[in-house]
């Protein structure tokens, strides 16, 4: 009974937040220095067409009406037309989403298990070599910027492998040959479904470098949080009780201690989703990966205001939902919340 109440309360607090986000995007829309209609139609367009557009976009109404008109569109899923190619923003974004999801998925696949395992082991074996190396990785992960890492990987991977003739690791784009029959939009999986191993290997080779670049930053965050979570738990009394019961050290660390530390690890993986969405913009621009990150960047550079703000809304909804899922998982795992702690 306590669990659904917890979920409901989390949902309720979500609504004002989402409304707040739409407010921010609306303010940004109003803060555009140039006249949006003129920018949309282009400098040469005749004045009365631009005026008709201004009326269509309710630019002359009072702020409140504009906001309600804006919200009306949003609720109908219409994010307005893109300044760049004049088509609805949503239709631009949707086909590109699977590419980014695939990249983020493989980055997480790389970062989560490695980060968690290193976090646990470095907390258990204090001041041994594994502790120092993982602390070094954690510090590097924070200090090395994702974009620079991507560029460096490109240089060295290409340079060295070329030297030893192994430069088959492609550096750009998702696939050199034609994409497989799109079933899920994930090239790696589609190629498997289509039963074409050659394509799968090629797709996997393409995604390797970008995923490692994106994953490295997340790895540092996850490692650091798991380690501090584990250190705190290992100091608790019940760990000493487990040892007094004669439980083996490995069992104490992985079974008893980690079971409690999963809570802090979960909350951090919610955080890394945000870091992934952000890092994604860099990685996609370096490896020319046409996902939604690259679309967002191009619209920011080319001044596509509506697609810019549309992207912010979609990403925020995705991020907020991800955090909600993580919270619910946290509630389910932790008996204290599930069975009615305060």
């Amino acid at each position: 009974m306590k669990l659904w109440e917890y979920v409901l309360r989390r949902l309720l607090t979500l609504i004002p937040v989402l409304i707040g986000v739409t407010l921010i995007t609306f303010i940004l829309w109003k803060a555009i220095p140039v006249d949006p209609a003129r920018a949309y139609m282009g400098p040469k367009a005749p004045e009365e067409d631009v005026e008709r557009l201004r009326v269509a976009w309710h630019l002359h109404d009072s702020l409140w009406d504009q906001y309600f008109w804006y919200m009306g569109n949003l609720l109908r899923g219409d994010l307005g037309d893109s300044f760049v190619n004049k088509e609805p923003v949503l239709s631009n974004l949707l086909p590109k989403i699977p590419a980014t999801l695939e990249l983020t998925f493989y980055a997480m696949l790389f970062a989560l298990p490695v980060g968690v395992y290193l976090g646990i082991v470095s907390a258990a074996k204090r001041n041994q070599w594994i502790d120092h190396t993982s602390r070094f990785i954690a510090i590097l992960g924070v200090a090395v910027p994702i974009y620079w890492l991507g560029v460096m990987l490109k240089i060295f991977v290409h340079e060295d492998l070329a030297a030893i003739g192994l430069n088959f690791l492609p550096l750009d784009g998702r696939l050199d040959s034609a994409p497989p029959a799109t079933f899920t939009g994930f090239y790696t999986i589609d190629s498997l479904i289509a039963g074409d191993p050659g394509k799968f290997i090629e797709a996997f080779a393409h995604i390797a470098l970008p995923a490692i670049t994106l994953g490295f930053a997340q790895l540092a965050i996850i490692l650091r949080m798991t380690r501090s979570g584990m250190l705190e738990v290992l100091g608790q009394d019940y760990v000493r009780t487990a040892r007094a019961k004669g439980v083996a050290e490995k069992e104490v660390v992985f079974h008893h201690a980690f079971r409690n530390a999963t809570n802090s690890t979960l909350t951090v993986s919610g955080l890394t989703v945000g870091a992934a969405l952000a890092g994604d913009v860099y990685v996609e621009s370096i490896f020319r990966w046409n996902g939604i990150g690259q679309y967002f960047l191009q619209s920011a550079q080319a001044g596509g205001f509506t697609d810019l703000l549309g992207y912010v809304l979609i990403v925020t909804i995705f991020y907020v939902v991800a955090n909600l899922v993580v919270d619910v998982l946290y509630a389910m795992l932790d008996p204290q919340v599930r069975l009615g702690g305060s």
Partner: protein
Amino acid sequence: MRATQSASEPADHGPGEILLSARDVKMHFPMRGGLFRTVKGHVKAVDGVSLRVERGETLAVVGESGCGKSTLARLLLGLLEPSAGKVFFMGHDLTTQKLREVREQRRHLQMVFQDPMSSLDPRMTIKNIVSEPLVVHHKPGRRPRNVAVVAILVLLFGALAFALSILAFAVPKVPLFFGFLSTDVVFPSLIGVAFSAVTVVSGVGLWREGTWAWELATIIFAMSLVVSVIFFSPVQIGVTALFLASLVSVRKQFVSAEEISKRVVELLEVVGLKKEHLNRFPHEFSGGQRQRINIARALALNPDVIILDEPTSALDVSVQAQILNLLMELQRNLGLTYLFITHDLSVVYHIADRVAVMYAGKIVELGATEEIFRNPLHPYTKALISAAPVADPSVKADRIVLEGEVPSPVHPPPGCRFHPRCWLAFEPCSKLEPELFDAGNGHRFACFATARDRGLWRQTGTNTAIDRPVPV
């Protein structure tokens, strides 16, 4: 004697002057839960307690964890607003008066807290901690003229700076001085706004004679002097120097005057600490020494009543003896009155004149220490006394071991709260709430069974209405 005895309290024993008293005080903390933070129930921490403390005596309040003794302490001190009932201190009702009024009354009522580790501010030296009560209650009559003038000056300067930096926002872009960045004046004005806001705050603080405000103002003007010297704007240097001078002239008013630090040294010596401890930090002291600092702080305003919330339970046996001796010595020399809260019966027996035993938010037995320990009337007191371990192997007490645990304060059992665990419980115990029966010379208890055995209460046919006690 300052306070007359308010007529409404029946003085039922001894001519001793009542200093602190509570009449049927209740404290129910609302428990919020569920979806919309609705009030689900009430934690009835204190549920109808009447208590009287006379001058010069030590009243001990004994009870297990969760019986509400700490909440009672905070109620009597006026820190918490009781849900029902009244608290009188020296005849003045603490609950109804305005906060400023009450704070004035409360200087004669101080409290020593339980955990010596966390009841001292880690960032303050001992001198500031002990002198804080003196500084807070240091208001001589009217605000002196020069302080008022300086306060207004600072306030004006702050407001002026605030207006200037708001204006600066509108100024068009000007190349920033130390770099190629051509940036508008947003950032300097942003910092300007913050600076002037803090000045205004310190001006208001000065007006209300807060010592923190004087220190804040000095820091601000010292900083602005340094900044103005770096950027060498003579006007600014002159203004800040003027302000600093005026602040220093007012120094006597705020910074602890000579006689305050003399008083602090005196207090430290009274509690057995030495002068060189003055400027040390709390984390450099042992548990016992910290509790002495707490006591010194409580003595600062030479109070009449000190409430001690388990002062020795966090200390070792030998340190506990030192603190108990100190408290007894202070009571003899300064004529203090103690309200001593603890769960340790041997400390109660040694130091208390009268004892009140609390269980689940109510007083179940009240009386002189000797009387209670020699002839406990309430079953819970009997169990408590028999359960307490005694440091003498030859005393093989026949232990009454109670079953079950302390009841939850949210849904206390109906009628007498002890009946589920009581071996004397009979029919009316689970229906009626016993009142404090009087067994002679101040020894009162709240138990039907004992009252019935002593003929103070007869069970009527209907078993529901309580029959007035039969005069013995």
